[in-house]
């Protein structure tokens, strides 16, 4: 594999929806690449297509035309089953509203992705403990989401996203539901995951303060990207 190869490459990516008899273009002929190890904050007005873009990168939605390449391989033409497998191996998702399973404990929520790979029981336990430790919530392993604050739930969600050791973390407004202090804690944590553990992070946010934690800022407006490197 070419070491200069970008992690993601979008080629002439277009996405449009049919609504009320006319097609609405979210973006047209988008070309972009994302380097391994980057931490990107995607910003832009509501409805500009940030979530739609993230869904393309996460393989949970398909473009209308164009290609999405991950490590040089097209993922836009994979089947649903292949995509599920690919997501389990490569992607960690973090959502605005945490999306934890209410019936499972924190530890069980973190365990979910491990049910998708043949990990031994002893190793599983170790990985869960480590993931919970990294997000600083090891003492809440047996609590259910209902018993945790928003910030704590988001930590559990991050632990779930990293437990299977994916290359990429896709975060859709991960601090959108949190107060400033909790938000900063979560963002610092993402920064550590990016810098210390080499995770590539792509984060959608409305919050300019949050964007400051990223290495790269992308403004998405009317289907165009404006790119700004922070460092």
């Amino acid at each position, binding site marked *: 594999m070419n070491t200069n190869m970008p992690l993601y490459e979008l080629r002439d990516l277009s996405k449009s929806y049919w609504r009320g008899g006319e097609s609405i273009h979210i973006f047209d002929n988008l070309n972009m690449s994302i380097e391994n190890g980057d931490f990107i904050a995607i910003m832009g007005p509501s409805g500009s297509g940030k979530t739609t873009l993230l*869904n393309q990168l996460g393989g*949970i939605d398909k473009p209308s035309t164009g290609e999405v390449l991950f490590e040089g391989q097209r993922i836009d033409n994979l089947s649903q089953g292949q995509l599920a497998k690919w997501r389990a191996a490569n992607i960690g998702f973090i959502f605005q509203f945490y999306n934890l399973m209410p019936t499972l404990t924190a530890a069980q929520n973190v365990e979910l992705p491990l*049910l998708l790979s043949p990990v031994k029981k002893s190793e599983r336990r170790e990985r869960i403990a480590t993931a919970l430790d990294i997000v600083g919530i090891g003492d809440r392993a047996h609590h259910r989401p209902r018993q945790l604050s928003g910030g704590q739930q988001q930590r559990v969600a991050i632990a779930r996203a990293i437990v299977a050791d994916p290359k990429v973390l896709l975060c859709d407004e991960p601090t959108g539901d949190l107060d400033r202090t909790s938000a900063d804690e979560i963002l610092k944590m993402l920064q550590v995951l990016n810098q210390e553990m080499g995770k590539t992070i792509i984060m959608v946010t409305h919050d300019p303060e949050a964007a400051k934690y990223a290495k790269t800022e992308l403004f998405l407006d009317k289907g165009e990207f404006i790119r700004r490197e922070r460092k």
Partner: protein
Amino acid sequence: MNNFSLVLSNLGRKKLRTALLIISILIAFLIFGVLGAFFKAWNAGTEMAAADRLISVNKINFTVSMPIAYINKVRSTEGVKIATHASWFGGYYQQPRNFVQTFAVDAPSYLEAFPELIFADGQREAFLSTRNCLAVGADIAKQYQWKVGDNIPLKSNIWRKVGGSDAWEFSVCAIFDGNEENIGANYAFFHYDYFNESKSFAKDMIGWMVITSDNPANNDLIAKRIDEMFANSFAETETSSEAAFNKAFLAQVGNISLILTLIIGASFMTILVIVGTTMVMAITERTKEIAVMKTLGFQTGRIFSLVLAESIIISLFGGLLGLGLAYLAVSAIGPMMATAMPGMSMSLQIVLIAIGLMIAFGFVTGFLPALKAMNVKIVDALGKS
């Protein structure tokens, strides 16, 4: 954590709802178990019938008797292997509600014609050689706790002895049972000779004849021969296969099997709809969670199975509880009903059918929700916050 604990955690989400579902399925299988046991007892007559046995009754009605002389004529008819006869005694023990279905039979030929009746060592011989012996079915013996050697007076509503007494003295010298589970042992019989000598009227008359043919294929021919032989006499006969006779007897009481099937069917349909709808609702509530699982990489097939498993577990759990209760109910009712509805018990067959039904029930109620879960679109479901 594994698939099973995932399923259980989902069932534990709304405990009241899960409990209500389990209770409704429990009720369906309670009904199924009790009515099934009842149905089995009801049908025992036709199941017991042997292919080569014919029954010959008075053409007027099976309660009208015929002369004993008929039996020798039948025995010499071509194609007849064994011919025996029996007469209805009625009979009750101490009180009329303690009904004991009792026949007076031509002992040696009767035992020959009913080889499915088995005796403990020596009891068959004891019966044949003891004039006032009452051979008692194991079910009856158990119900009244009669043992070999007991002297039992039975009263008859029909038959009085010479001298006017309605109490007949018997000695229990044999207890018989069927060689298979579905052969009833809920009646008793004794020697026709004792009966005929002691009864005060209708001497030398018998109730009906039981005939075994040399070949079941000849049944119709033999029946015709016998009926023609007694045509235009004062007691004409009507001969048919034992199974047909038993069926016709049951038909006189009404088509109860249809009624039972309708009751069971209606209760199942109702509960099927309730459980199915509830499961669909339960999955709709969880659309977002299912989308998250798919996002994590759970395959659609696995999601389908996980949801289907919920229904199957609920169905098996409720069903087995219901069947257990039915077993207790039947064990309690059975002995009380032993005379009116003998042979009422929970057979292995009922249990196996019930378990099959539980699994089928789980599949039917789980299929739509599982399909719904499988088809959840991640983007749509996650878009709705």
